[in-house]
């Protein structure tokens, strides 16, 4: 295992310390239980957004705490959902009297832990709403299974709903908006290499030099199927087509196109993919009106990428463009 770490058990604590030292203007970091809140929390009268999940997806979620995005993030161990006590304390720390929205990626662990935390917070008199993100079209959607994973769309939801909260929208409006975003967004991902969870010390899966995984999540899980390597254009097609067909996105639609690195794939490759994705969408009459390109929701050092589409309208465009000031995403301020 080749990593810039010390003791694998200390990875998350040391990362948090780094974040605390690096961004005192943006965030405050708490330990035991671990959580990160924006520097000026609680913001009175504003709906507060809390998210969280396993570590290893940086900059998500800690890097998205700040004005215009999240009020708090709860980091779990690497690839492990955080615990209800973290979420409860974070919720209490950011509640500004207008209620708290939990943004939860649809994983069994995340959902159960956040549910418990919401119950506990409500028990303490805080108004809490929860929204589940489940945008991964690689997984079949069914009431008999755990359902679809929450992946790339999470980043877009946090930005957009963060802007809405900043604008003063109510808890219900924020939750409805988040559900609308979830309804209009779809993603799919692929891996060229596996990643290595620090305390495991070996790759989560073994992938021969000439093969790739299609339909992966963000936790180093193997994907839906394994196939021979293909050129970037073909891979882009293989991810984008199921995404487009799922909603479906249609001629005339305006979309945000998000090409995300799983961590180890450099920007130069993302632009090659982005180029092809726009070409494909163009041919379908789907118009890319906003974009995001880079490593925003990662799986440690995994090489690979995901593509997310979000159908846009005037409100979503305005909220997307609104100022945001976090370590991981910043514009307008």
């Amino acid at each position, binding site marked *: 295992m080749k990593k810039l770490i010390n003791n694998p058990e200390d990875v998350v604590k040391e990362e948090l310390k780094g974040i605390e030292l690096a961004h005192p203007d943006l965030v405050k970091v708490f330990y035991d239980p671990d959580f990160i809140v924006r520097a000026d929390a609680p913001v009175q009268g504003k709906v507060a957004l809390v998210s969280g999940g396993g570590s290893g997806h940086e900059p998500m979620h800690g890097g998205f705490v700040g004005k215009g995005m999240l009020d708090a993030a709860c980091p779990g*161990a690497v690839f492990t959902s955080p615990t209800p006590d973290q979420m409860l304390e974070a919720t209490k720390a950011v509640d500004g009297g207008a209620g708290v929205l939990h943004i939860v990626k649809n994983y069994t662990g995340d959902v159960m*832990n956040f549910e418990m935390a919401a119950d506990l917070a409500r028990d303490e008199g805080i108004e809490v709403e929860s929204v589940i993100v489940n945008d991964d079209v690689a*997984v079949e959607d069914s009431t008999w299974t755990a359902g679809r994973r929450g992946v790339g769309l999470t980043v877009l939801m946090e930005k957009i709903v963060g802007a809405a909260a900043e604008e003063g929208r109510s808890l219900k409006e924020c939750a409805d908006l988040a559900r609308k975003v979830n309804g209009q967004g779809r993603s799919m991902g692929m891996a060229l290499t596996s990643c290595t*969870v620090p305390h495991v010390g070996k790759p989560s899966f073994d992938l021969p030099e000439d093969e790739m995984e299609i339909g992966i*999540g963000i*936790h180093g899980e193997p994907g839906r199927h394994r196939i021979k390597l293909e050129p970037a254009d073909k891979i882009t097609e293989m991810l984008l087509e199921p995404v487009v067909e799922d909603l479906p996105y249609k001629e005339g639609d305006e979309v945000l196109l998000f090409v995300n690195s799983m961590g180890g794939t450099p920007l130069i490759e993302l632009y090659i993919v982005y180029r092809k994705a726009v070409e494909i969408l163009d041919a379908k009459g789907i118009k890319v009106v906003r974009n995001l390109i880079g490593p925003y929701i990662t799986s440690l050092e995994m090489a690979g990428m995901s593509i997310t589409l979000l159908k846009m309208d005037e409100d979503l465009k305005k909220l997307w463009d609104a100022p945001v000031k976090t370590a991981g995403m910043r514009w307008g301020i």
Partner: protein
Amino acid sequence: MAITRDDVLNWIKSYAQAIEENCEMLTDLDREIGDADHGANMRRGFRAVLEKLPSVEDKDIGTILKNVGMTLLSKVGGAAGPLYSTMFTKAGMTIGAKMEMDLNDWAQALEAGTTGIAKLGKALPNDKTMLDALYPALNALSAAMGNGASVGEALQKSADAAHEGMLATIPLVARKGRASYLGERSAGHQDPGATSTYLLIKTAAETWTDC
């Protein structure tokens, strides 16, 4: 014929040790069809439990088990955290403020824990989860008790059934938890949670064999 508080403490400690010893194996199973953390999650949780125990070991069984549950809840995370937490908490609530229990208490505790897990996780039998070790363990336990088996025998039957249930997860296609994302590819692999659950039943049988 009674399982004392000390027996319960010994069981928890011996399970904690089984987790230490099988940590890598559990994580490896989770590597195959999950995210390679089940062993590490359980170990983190039970290390914390061992640290917690001294402060509650003079309490009744119910209190001890509920404290185990609370500790797991705040230390494990993931799916296993709330699920195992529920198991211990519900079991503790069922047994209540007793300083010793009989096999019947244990059977009721185990059933309450299992039902708690099923409710929280919304999983059914054959979804390839820890329930696939728990249900057989429960059934075997009550069958053995019905047949008038000794405590040791009944617990052994229950452990054997958990073992079979664990192995029976291998061919299943997962419908719950992270393994479900793999679809058909999840078949052919043993469920990590069912494996850690088998160890739980097995250490109980081993620790309490002479009770």
